[in-house]
């Protein structure tokens, strides 16, 4: 789980889940408490899902893909 997924992907980590920001990888303090928890939960759930997914090379898993505009603003 990393907010800078290009780094772990480039050094060969095989299952990488995109986090929110370096300062808060698994959640977003700028959101309401409820939404913050939903984001954190989605990231961890995606990580658990990735562990069950076959990969043959460094692969990025996108927990927030359903909300593309939000994702883009949070990737730094």
């Amino acid at each position: 789980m990393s907010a800078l997924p290009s780094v772990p992907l480039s050094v060969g980590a095989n299952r990488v889940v995109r986090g929110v920001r370096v300062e808060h990888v698994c959640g977003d303090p700028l959101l309401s408490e409820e939404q913050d928890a939903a984001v954190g939960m989605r990231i961890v759930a995606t990580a658990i899902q990735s562990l069950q997914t076959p990969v043959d090379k460094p692969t990025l898993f996108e927990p927030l893909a359903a909300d593309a505009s939000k994702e883009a603003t949070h990737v730094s």
Partner: protein
Amino acid sequence: METPVRVVHYLNQFFGGIGAEEHANTPVQVRDGPVGPGRALQQMLGESGSVVATIICGDNYFVEETEAASQTVREALERIQPSVVVSGPAFDAGRYGMACGLISGLATELGIPSVTAMHPDNSGIVVYGKDMIAIPTGVDAAEMQAVLKDVAGLAIRLGRGNELGPADEEGYLPRGYRRIVNRDKSGAERALEMLTAYVHDRPFTTEIPIRAYEAIPAPAPIANIREATIAMVSSGGIVPRSNPDHQVSSRAENYFKYPIEGIDELSVDDWISVHGGFNTVYLNTKDPNYALPLRYARRMEAQGEFKSLYHTCFTTAGTGCAVSVAQRMGAGIAGELRDAGVDAVLMVAT
């Protein structure tokens, strides 16, 4: 004509003609003149150098009785006063390569230049590579003659007190040093030339080689996640508030383990991030679970999404960390988790 350089040559028990593995415990012995491959080395040196003595030691003895072996070698070098020390070539022989590395270190201590030769993956290079001049070899002693020719060339120059140029020009393994040099053309001109060569598909040499990371085979997916024990790891500098192990905020060289059994989430009253590489205000005033998401992992555990969380979390502060240090810590964490029967890891990398 210049005075011939005085060479002391180091060999293991095999190349020193004492015997194979059954003689690997042979202590250090010093002989006059060249021995074994030292004779070929002498030929290559010609009139420019003379192998005045050969130090021979068993592979096991040198790595097991390092202190005693080093002391004997040190005394011999002080007595003989060579102008350069040659060791090996060790090819891919690990203990021999380690001994050659130690020999180079001893020579350096005494202010004597040294040169050795071995395979780039030899543990001697891995451990001592930064501190010695080593010519790369293959794994096959059949190339002994060719290697000794290169060794002799560098030995003569080092023995005469000459400075060597860059590794790729002189043919030794890069040690990772950078030196300031003057170039004929400015950086802009050189960059443009490189770019032109690149677009025309012509060969060029980068001035900033990027480390090639090892390819890690992807582990197979977990077949039955409901039976899996999962551990939590974080490089976000998360520690108990009192920082009991005195984790540092940057250039950490250790990871630490903290029990999380019976804890549902990381409370901001009990946990803190000491990470010095980013603003930790959100972690330290609001929610440490951002960097070690115990709260959400516990929920999934409670829902039966996997069997259980491992009772201990592993953390370090991942900033300003050398790749070699990170590899050592990673191997340590992975080894402990494997031995504990953990199936998978949730890791936050900040």
